């Protein structure tokens, strides 16, 4: 588990991003517990903020891993992250208040074994492979848990499987109209899997800059949060869904305009309706 930071000139070191992302994400997911304490669902949007923190961290992990050249596309890394994360996350939801911590620990174990398998059994010999797959499994689990908390107001198994349309939660439609029964977890899976790989996939190239990629990661997170807020409408109170939507739109608008500014800063030129610049000899 040696860390070999490659070509990340200046900028924030990976360890800092990792620790900050982990703490911010877990804390945000825990903040949705205020829902239970206060008896409302207005604080569900913290789940979405937790996913943004985890995705920012995840995009940097992918950059870290893919700078070695893993032989296949960047998107596949996101897929393995969420494929292993979804299992850890759903198992952890059984543990009530301890769920986020259990998810982190269990995902780390799954990621560790997957990383060992990829690095040693498949003989890939990439120094950061094991660490990266551990991080990615944790991120996958946390992002899915964040979406679950945001869309249902809680991260416990019973609330994921029971719709709030029926009060007693015992009749047939209540199971079907739930986060799991309606398979909204499938949408959350893809939202996260694309959002985690897109920042690095979109920003790779010789003039890669860290702040631009991380801003894009936050933008992807908020964009996914907008749609998650819409999907939460039938599952939680409309007011809570609207609060989430409002927070997501503000965050998305800010990060998107910031990202365009940063792209403008880094681009060779910013032209509108101009021809290809003439280079002699063509």
């Amino acid at each position, binding site marked *: 588990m040696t860390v070999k930071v490659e070509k990340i000139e200046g900028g924030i070191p990976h360890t800092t991003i990792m620790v900050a992302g982990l703490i911010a994400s877990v804390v945000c997911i825990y903040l949705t517990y205020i829902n239970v304490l206060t008896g409302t669902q207005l604080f569900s949007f913290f789940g979405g903020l937790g996913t943004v923190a985890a995705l920012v961290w995840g995009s940097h992990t992918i950059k870290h891993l893919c700078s070695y050249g893993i032989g296949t596309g960047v*998107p596949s890394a996101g897929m393995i992250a969420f494929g292993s994360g979804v299992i850890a996350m759903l198992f952890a939801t059984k543990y009530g208040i301890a769920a986020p911590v259990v998810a982190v620990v269990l995902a780390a174990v799954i990621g560790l074994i997957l990383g060992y398998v990829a690095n040693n059994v498949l003989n890939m010999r990439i120094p950061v492979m094991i660490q990266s797959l551990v991080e990615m499994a944790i991120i996958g689990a946390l992002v899915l848990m964040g979406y679950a908390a945001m869309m249902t107001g809680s991260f416990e198994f019973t609330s994921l499987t029971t719709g709030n349309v029926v009060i007693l939660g015992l009749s047939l439609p209540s199971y079907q109209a739930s986060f799991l029964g309606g398979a909204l977890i499938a949408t959350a899976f893809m*939202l996260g899997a694309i959002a985690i790989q897109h920042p690095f996939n979109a920003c*790779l190239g010789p003039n890669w800059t860290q702040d631009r990629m991380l801003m894009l990661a936050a933008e992807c997170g908020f964009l996914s949060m907008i*749609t998650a807020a819409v999907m939460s409408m039938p599952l939680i109170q409309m007011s809570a869904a609207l609060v989430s939507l409002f927070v997501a739109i503000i965050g998305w608008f800010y990060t998107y305009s910031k990202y365009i500014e940063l792209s403008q800063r880094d681009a060779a030129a910013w032209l509108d309706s101009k021809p290809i610049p003439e280079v002699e000899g063509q």
Partner: protein
Amino acid sequence: MESIVFGIGITALAGALATVAGAAENTESDIGSQGDPNSQVQLAPQMGYIHRIFNKAVAGEPPAYGLWIALGAGIAWAFMAMQINPILAIVLGSGLAVFVQGVYATTAYLGRTASLAKFGQPVYVDILKSMTTVTMAHAFVAIFTTVTLCHLINAALGHPFPLPLLGIVWGIALGAAGSATGNPFYGKERQYQNQKFGAGVPIAASGNIVRYAEAGERNSLDNGWFSAKLGGPASGVCFGLIVFLELWRTVLFEQVGAGWGAIIIGIIIILVFTVIDRYIEVWARKNYGPYQKPTEEASS
């Protein structure tokens, strides 16, 4: 009997929707240079060929379409759970999914192009304005038709998977079929129009993509026009056949021989396609004939 006739009708409708979806998907991804041909659009500036082609590297087509369709399906499911009529729900879901697709398209173009600053590739804002909207329109067609066919499979044919799960399955299949069929046609035939016809692009010519049109400079709308000739329709027929035959063999033959009927029909279909494939391959060998005996690796 009536239920079988009903099932066949739904199957045909789903196949038709899938055909439209495949054609729109491939045209959309070719306008955006998504998928594998993207590598050449990315490579060209590094070889000194500055271009005005849209470079929309969101992800490979299968994961990207996995998201668009799953998202459209998820939002449609949510609206349906709020007692909104399914057609309106699917339109709203597809609309929101297209918004996400459009935002991803712009960030991908800005990101990739800004990271190529070293080679002098400028960001063309007019490309963003004119191409993104066109890809969004095509994506809407692809998403709406695919989500509708998922809804039909779930609601009318009684498949056990909920809508978003069907969305992920058919979204990835749509992207896989569309990219497999359509990518070479755009990648070889359009990007490297200046290379010899009827031969692969020599590795030495990589990056020298065609950048000028009949008049003026080529943009990605020209590429969409070109893919719509063959790559798009072929992808559409490919995905349409996949959906149609898969549903058809189940709806008609599932009850035959305790489930073995559908299996036998499926194997027969596979064998038929194998024969067609072999026929095309042999036809090409006979009619095109061998290239000259390969000499040293010479670039043209």
